[in-house]
């Protein structure tokens, strides 16, 4: 049943989204308005992206989400194809994350996450699915595993890791056997702990330079898989060492910026830290936008933003509860978890609680692909709400 019924729209959620987009433009302007050589008009671009995203949003709300369920395998297949194509595109900054198209660049991993959620939800919501069978579990693992490894191969480890909590939540909700999930959780914890220990004690060039007597007692060989910069960031996080290369610099400056904000901040457009270039200008409006916010409007502003996101997540969860059918329920839950992971990891990284990753802040960070894909995801949630169960 296509169409939009205004009475059935979740206005709280839409209002929160629009408020966040407006604030996003304000703070992107603040992050770049003074730099001598900056493009200076990024905030306008951001508004243009948001406009495009909102167009997609309302289109999706208009369509019955069951169309999405029917097309789920096409959507999933298309996303996988894009993820494969991107690996053959020329590398930018050493990673194959973007497909250059005339006029804009596409980041397939953003779509890949949504496609994985849709695919997994459709797979588990199918009426003949038996939750107790190993087959179902293997199917889920395959659906999530394929995009996971494709994204990790770009390499974009942090984005691919987001898939883990999403799929766990969806599987838990749909009633896959707890034993399966326990195995997954145990494996993830084990791998994470092992790599942390490995990174902390591995052989580094500095250690290699020392004489055997000086070397620390526990030394592990070089770690495979992870790129050097990724290891660096995790190492900065584990060792609390600020001097380590540029990963440490960003972390320290971000912490100083947030910390110098105080209770009520320095005032809008008066954040010295980012504009003087201590916080690198390239990351201030993208991954570190929360840093600008916290510096300029302080703890009260930062907490307000956290509250806004909590409201948004709460509405997603509410949609999941009120959904007419299993597919909508699972999809809304998955999207909610995805947003939460982005918000949590990004803010935690800004204030130095988690290592630095490349995860942007949904609806706030500057970037077209991410803005549009976030709005598409939220459009799906709204679409589910449109066609909810009415008591």
């Amino acid at each position: 049943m296509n169409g939009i019924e205004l009475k059935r729209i979740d206005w709280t959620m839409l209002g929160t989204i629009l408020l966040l987009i407006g604030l996003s433009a304000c703070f992107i302007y603040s992050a770049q308005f003074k730099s001598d050589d900056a493009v200076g008009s990024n905030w306008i671009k951001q508004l243009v992206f948001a406009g495009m995203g909102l167009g997609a949003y309302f289109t999706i709300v208009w369509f019955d989400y069951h169309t999405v369920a029917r097309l789920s395998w096409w959507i999933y297949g298309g996303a996988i194809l894009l993820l494969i194509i991107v690996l053959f595109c020329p590398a930018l900054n050493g990673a194959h994350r973007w497909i250059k198209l005339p006029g804009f660049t596409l980041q397939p991993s953003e779509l890949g996450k949504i496609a994985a959620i849709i695919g997994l939800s459709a797979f588990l919501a199918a009426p003949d699915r038996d939750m107790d069978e190993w087959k179902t579990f293997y199917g889920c693992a395959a659906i999530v595993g394929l995009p996971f490894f494709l994204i990790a191969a770009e390499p974009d480890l942090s984005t691919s890791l987001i898939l883990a909590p999403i799929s766990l939540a969806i599987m838990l909700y749909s009633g896959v056997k707890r034993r399966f999930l326990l195995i997954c959780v145990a494996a993830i914890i084990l791998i994470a702990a092992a790599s942390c220990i490995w990174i902390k004690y591995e052989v580094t060039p500095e250690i290699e330079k020392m004489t055997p007597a000086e070397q620390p007692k526990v030394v592990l060989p070089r770690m495979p898989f992870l790129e050097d910069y990724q290891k660096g960031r995790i190492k900065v996080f584990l060792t609390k060492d600020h001097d380590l290369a540029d990963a440490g610099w960003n972390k320290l400056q971000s912490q100083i910026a947030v910390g110098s904000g105080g209770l009520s901040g320095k005032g809008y457009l008066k954040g010295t830290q980012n504009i003087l270039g201590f916080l690198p200008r390239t990351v201030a409006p993208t991954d570190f936008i929360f840093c600008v916010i916290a510096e300029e409007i302080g703890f009260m502003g930062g907490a307000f933003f956290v509250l806004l996101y909590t409201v948004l997540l709460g509405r997603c969860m509410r949609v999941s509860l009120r959904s007419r059918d299993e597919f909508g329920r699972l999809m809304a839950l998955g999207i909610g978890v995805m947003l939460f992971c982005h918000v949590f990891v990004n803010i935690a990284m800004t204030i130095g609680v988690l290592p630095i990753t490349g995860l942007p802040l949904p609806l706030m960070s500057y970037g077209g692909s991410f803005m549009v894909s976030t709005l598409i995801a939220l459009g799906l949630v709204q679409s589910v709400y449109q066609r909810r169960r009415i008591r």
Partner: protein
Amino acid sequence: MKVRHKREASNLVIWVVFGLMVMGMGLLVSNLWELQVKQTSGFEEVFRNQSVRRVRLPAVRGKIYDKHGECLADSVPNYCIAIFTEELRAPRSPTANTLELMHEIWVRVGVRPDITYRDIQRHLELTPYEPLVAWKDLSSKSKTRWRTKFEEWTAPKKGSIRRKKIPGLDQSNALQGNAIVIQTRELKKRVTTTAANTLELVYEISERIGIPKTVRFQDIKDHIYARRPLPLLAWKNIDEATMAQWADSCSNLAGTDIYYQPARTYPQGDALAHLIGFTLEADAIREEDGGERVHFDMRGIQGRKGLESTYNDLLEGDSGFQLMQIDVSGFHHLDLQSQPAKPGGDLQLTIDAAIQRFAMEALATRQDGEDPAFPVKGAVVVLDPDTGDVLAMVSSPTFDPNIYMQSKDYRQALLKDTSARTYHRAVFGQYPPGSTFKPVVALGVLRDQPDYVDTIHKCKNPYYVGKRRMKCWIHSRGGEHGTVSMREALMYSCNCYMFEMALENGYEPIRAMASEFGFGQYAGLFPNLDEFPEQKDLKYGNLPPTSYNDTDLCNMSIGQGAITASPLQMAMVVGAIANGGRLYRPRLVEKFRYSPDEAYNENPTWEIRRIDVPMEALEVVRGGMHDVVMHEEGTAEKARVQGIQIAGKTGSAQYRKKVDGEVINSVHTWMISYAPFDFPRYAIAMIVEDGVSGGNTIGPRLSQLYTNIFEYDGTLLGGDQ
């Protein structure tokens, strides 16, 4: 068929998930609270350190005066036209954009553009939408250069295949025939950088005042990158006419002002160049010196040679510091606190500027047979024998420190000058003393054997020491001195007498006496002012400990061979002979103070030692030196001044030098002297390199110097000769 799980359990999952999310958000807020509210003081301090800049402000450098208070080194303002870039932010200016692009192209073409600033302005006023031809007729060489540079300039970014677009230049058609064309319509609405605005202002000022611009676009960019809150000195050291013109036509322009830098001037010009030295831009401050970090260093000046360098700490004063907060764009925002600079202290020298000038003129006056094409190379030192005060100290040839400080070309030229103009010959020049050493030899022998004064030796030609023939100077003129006494030996400067005397007494008495007179020892011209003076055991000049053989001994007895001394040392020697055997440390600084409002501290005179020499012996030597000038057969009759009794000793030290690969014999001509004979007030050592003989080369110069000095101090009434 299996029954599916109940839905109710699943709803619980949603609540659990949401609960976890809220907990996560709560964790973030609590961490934010921790970081922003509880720990905030720590981070605010870090933040303050990052936005506050320390600027060093140089102090006014102290002055140097002569004995009578005449200023020898003064601090003067050096006026500059400064541009305050912070006032030039943001206005969009098509002219500035065009100028910026023109400079960017200029760097890549390497040829001056064919348009002026006014052309650009006119073009933008009248036909802004038409293309502007900036280079009309490029040679094929510069076209090739431009093509490769343009290629590099527009090279596509990494990971892209599209060439960069340079606003204002056609991607494909920038070079039209032999011309480079700027599309000004593309530059009309563009944001203008501060550097471009600054460049436009520089052109505007240059146009209004009519002086060529001296600052490059790269300098402007560097300044804005690194020293943004400080003024950019676009023209340094401008003259008064330019300043008046600036005030007339540019003072209404925003962002420009007159700024002054400290500079040094030496009213005496080249007369004291070696002694006082000069200043150049100070070194960047080192972090370990100040303790705290200095972000912006308004560099002052620093002494680099001579007294300016030796007493730099006293003269320099203490730099002031200013803390300024910079705003979000890195421009100067607020002055926080400042610590004013403490002006430097002053020195009053023992130098008498008038005597210094006389000495310089006397040295420069050419005598018969001297080639005016070459500069006179030599030195004069005038001491007060009763105190060791240095009244004049001249090295020749000299240079002008005022030009030296300003002109790089002049400095380069001096480096290539073969006559070593910057070499301080009076202090650092080491020469064999020649016959001026003979009074010391005589005194050495007379201290051991007071009766030797009556000994008579014969000057005969030829004269052999062992198998080697030695010469008295008169032998080469075909004569001989015959039978001479000691006093006559000094008067005639007879070598043979010295040979005989040295051979009979050996080297030791000569060495002992010479050592007491300060040969081979540190003179201590530049002591630390606030410490008790200490005779450092440093080598200065050369006095061999033993003689190898008789020939060597004979050579040294007439001041040749391995013995060397500086003109300053010889002046000390003659001073000690004149005052009856007290060897004074030469004193340059009479008084000094650490700041201009303090009283002067006296720098005491200091006797190095009392030379142990019998008065009778000294009388004989002084008598001999008197005869050198005053006796009609003396070697230095040309040094006489009517009405003054002068004592002296000539010397001609032969040495060999290579000129164009050819070895020629040449002579350093010396004279040491004091006057008046009975109550000496001046002790002088003078040397001219490559002269004829002491009497002929130095004699007339010394006479001129004495005449001027005694007229100046009133002993002689000027003009009655």
